[in-house]
């Protein structure tokens, strides 16, 4: 292509605080419309905002994790515009003095590392939600449960050069925010959302081209599709000698295209000014240090710790730490049954297969860390073989049964480890297959597997395979 793609992203994270940013209402999702409201978050005349300091903690946390400097004097500003979901006619946000500035996030695309600058992170309140009922045309309702829920907006520098880089940045950012317990990262429900600024320029051109802002992309895949579509749209315009219009465009998921929402001339003049109802928030070293001390471990650090502390492979550690909840699950099992390698193996091979097949998250898994630990203990003790273990595992998973010992007992799956019993069985099989014993002793070593197989078959898989091996070897050398 003749053009260099320039992408900057604005990410909005809904914070996992229990109460809203400027009032005591719950942030709980899924309550009845307008159940989580009070005079403050519905913008009643005379009601005043009071800052939830937890929001500042979370914003500092996000800033520290992305190597930002923390701005010591924070000012909230009003962003003025009219919309029915905005109860006060302005959104309380930050403008001239955001809480974090000048950070970065490292990404990796096709084995190439790249550093993406972060311009700023600021705190703000969310708006409510319009509800358009199907039963009545031309009428809309407003649900203010989401109004005043805390957000941070993370603005990147225009450092990304492809949709793949943008997606890598977003994935990485989401991992970090989930790890920090700052945000649940749910893109479908909108608690992690992103707008993209995209422009093209001729290779080597010093100035940025005219950009379009893309909104309404509610999955990583849609971010990729929307950016690719936009790049194509703009390069078509430029190829034909046209000029890209500065505008905001809305991605239409169903049609796979974006459409103009508003142009530059319709752009709002938000008339930002410092909110006189809130005092500047002064953040001292003590405050930053306290957040730093309680900062949750980030994916990279956790990965390295897993390799060092648990002696597992880096590739396994990468998978286990790819999801904060999975990492927590792994560590919970290790705590009960300290055989990290075996546990990692079981999670990687068995557990994830089941979860992927059912497309569910680890948090929805019916096998508890305790249950998995008990199962692995049974294998370790030799009560069951690994193979039987897999059967028990499947049973536990499908029946949400976390008592493997009971499953083993009721189904009679315990391993045969009685040497006398096994010897009798082996002797019978060897006697019945004297010809094959001869072949084996004549050098056809493959035959060994046949004898083992026969024993396993006769024992319905319950014979202790290690003992079977040893006993057969003892008999036929």
């Amino acid at each position, binding site marked *: 292509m003749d053009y260099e793609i320039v992408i900057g992203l604005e990410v909005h994270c809904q914070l996992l605080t229990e109460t809203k940013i400027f009032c005591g209402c719950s942030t709980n999702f899924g309550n009845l419309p307008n159940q989580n409201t009070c005079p403050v978050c*519905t913008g009643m005349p*005379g009601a005043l905002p*009071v800052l939830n300091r937890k929001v500042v903690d979370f914003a500092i946390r996000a800033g520290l994790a992305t190597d930002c400097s923390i701005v010591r004097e924070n000012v909230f500003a009003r962003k003025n515009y009219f919309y029915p979901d905005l109860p*006060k006619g302005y959104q309380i946000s930050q403008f001239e003095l955001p809480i974090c500035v000048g950070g970065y996030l490292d990404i990796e695309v096709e084995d190439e590392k790249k550093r993406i600058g972060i311009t700023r992170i600021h705190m703000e309140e969310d708006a409510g939600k319009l509800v358009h009922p199907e039963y009545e045309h031309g009428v809309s309702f407003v649900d203010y449960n989401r109004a005043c829920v805390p957000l941070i907006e993370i603005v990147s520098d225009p450092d990304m050069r492809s949709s793949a880089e943008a997606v890598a940045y977003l994935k990485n950012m989401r991992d970090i925010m989930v790890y920090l317990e700052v945000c649940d990262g749910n893109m479908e429900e909108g608690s992690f959302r992103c707008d993209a600024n995209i422009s093209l320029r001729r290779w080597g051109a010093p100035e940025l081209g005219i950009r379009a802002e893309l909104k309404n992309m509610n999955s990583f895949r849609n971010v990729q599709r929307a950016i690719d579509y936009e790049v194509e749209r703009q390069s078509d315009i430029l190829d034909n000698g046209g000029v890209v219009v500065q505008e905001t465009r809305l991605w239409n998921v169903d049609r796979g295209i974006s459409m103009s929402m508003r142009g530059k001339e319709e752009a709002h003049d938000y*008339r930002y000014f410092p909110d006189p109802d809130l005092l500047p928030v002064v953040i001292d070293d003590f405050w930053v240090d306290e957040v730093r001390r309680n900062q949750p471990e980030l994916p990279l650090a956790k990965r390295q710790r897993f390799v060092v502390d648990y002696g597992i492979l880096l590739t396994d550690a990468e998978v286990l730490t790819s999801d904060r909840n999975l990492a927590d699950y792994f560590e919970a099992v290790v705590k009960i049954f300290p055989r990290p390698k075996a546990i990692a193996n079981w999670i990687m091979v068995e557990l994830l297969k089941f979860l992927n097949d059912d497309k569910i998250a680890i948090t929805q898994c019916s096998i508890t860390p305790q249950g998995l630990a008990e199962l692995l203990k049974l294998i370790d003790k030799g009560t069951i073989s690994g193979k039987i273990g897999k059967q028990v595992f499947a049973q536990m998973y499908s029946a949400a049964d976390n008592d493997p010992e009971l499953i083993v007992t009721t189904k009679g799956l315990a391993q045969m480890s009685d040497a006398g019993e096994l010897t009798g069985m082996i002797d019978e099989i060897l006697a019945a297959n004297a010809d094959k014993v001869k072949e084996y002793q004549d050098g056809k070593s493959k035959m060994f597997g046949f004898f083992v197989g026969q024993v396993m078959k006769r024992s319905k898989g319950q014979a202790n395979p290690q003992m079977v091996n040893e006993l057969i070897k003892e008999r036929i050398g």
Partner: protein
Amino acid sequence: MELYNYSLENLGELLDKGEISAVELTRSVLERISAVDDTIGSYLTVDAEGALIQAESADVRRRKRDNVTPLTGIPVGLKDLISTAGLQTTCASKILAGYRPEYDATVVSRLRSAGAVITGKLNMDEFAMGSSTENSAFQKTCNPWALDRVPGGSSGGSTAAVAAATAIATLGSDTGGSIRQPASFCGVVGMKPTYGRVSRYGLIAFASSLDQIGPVTLTVADAALLLGVIAGHDACDSTSVDLPVADYYKRLKNDIRGLKIGLPQEYFGAGLDSEVEVLVRSACGQLAAAGALVNEAISLPHTDYAVACYYLLATAEASSNLARYDGVKYGFRAENTDGLLDMYRQTRAQGFGDEVKRRIMLGTYALSSGYYDAYYRKAQQVRTLITRDFEKVFADCDVIVAPVCPTPAFAFGEKVDDPLAMYLSDILTIPVNLAGLPAISVPCGFTKSGLPVGLQIIARPFAEETLLNVAWQYEQLGGWSRRRPEIKKKAV
């Protein structure tokens, strides 16, 4: 003497001794309202039923000696921008007609827990924008001393009510002089506390960084008692200050000998009515005779810029504060509109009065991209300079004394078509709001035509104690408080 004519302080004593009941007192005030308020027009809403119920429970409290305060059983009226749960609160604007708040303002909760009886809601300039109460969307309020004159504004209903004895005491709000100027016009005591001293939670905002609720009363002692109830930190208002509240009443009689009083030259310049000047200067003479040290040559050099600065900042904040009146959630919504944008436009065009629209437009302009630095930011810088003027003066003075308003009450219609002339009516009160200082207007005499004039006293931030002390001492020297106008009933 009828009960409604007594001061809050005296009524408290009578109630304490059991000589009168809160119900009797409340009835007396309600009867007074029926008798004269169709002439004065101080109330927008009278809550007679609610008041009597509160009076009964105040009597029970007094009988049981259960948490009795000087306000227990005292009928108090509220400016109609102070939110009262379930009781219509309109800001004298059509856009809030029928609006009943779901919660009480902090000052209202404090009054209720002190046992005060809330009589109703008082007229004002729409959204507190004005200096004559002529901008009320609903009615005119007359000056009880001269029915053809304005009571001042924006808390004109609050001051007229105290002057006409349709309430024992009231609360007003002061953004640029809105308590002090009408108190001066109506011959009552009106006080603006330090910004942050009284919670703004539930006060419907005009200009958030300037608004402050304060008492309007017959005497300085009454103001001290009422302020004692409403002052203090409130966790619901981030701008309220967590400082101890002194017992203002107890300290009223402190000696003022040796107290340093400054008279700012700039407040005695051109435009000051000569009768007003004479009354203010003679009040200063009395204070000096009582042992205060009066310095007539102090200077507040940035005074000239105050009005311009104020009309940029106050309108900027107002343009944003009033955005919530969009017809979506409460109050007035225009009918037969075509879509969302038209609903907004029609609702606000029909719902707001001219002065409110004028200020919204001014403020919107001041904040617009490209103008912000020249107007809003510059005005903030000027505000800092004005604040510093006062800081410098207060290094050598304990209080500043000045006129409240360049003129006594003016006639209806005199300035209503000349916004600039109306704005200049606040020239001597606005700097105090910009600097966040406490100030009071105390009656200091009458003009030859019988119009009251107020003396303005200004103190250091959070020095309400000193302010009330000086005001009380002057009140004893001057003896102008407690006078009542004779209200000639309008012919029906």
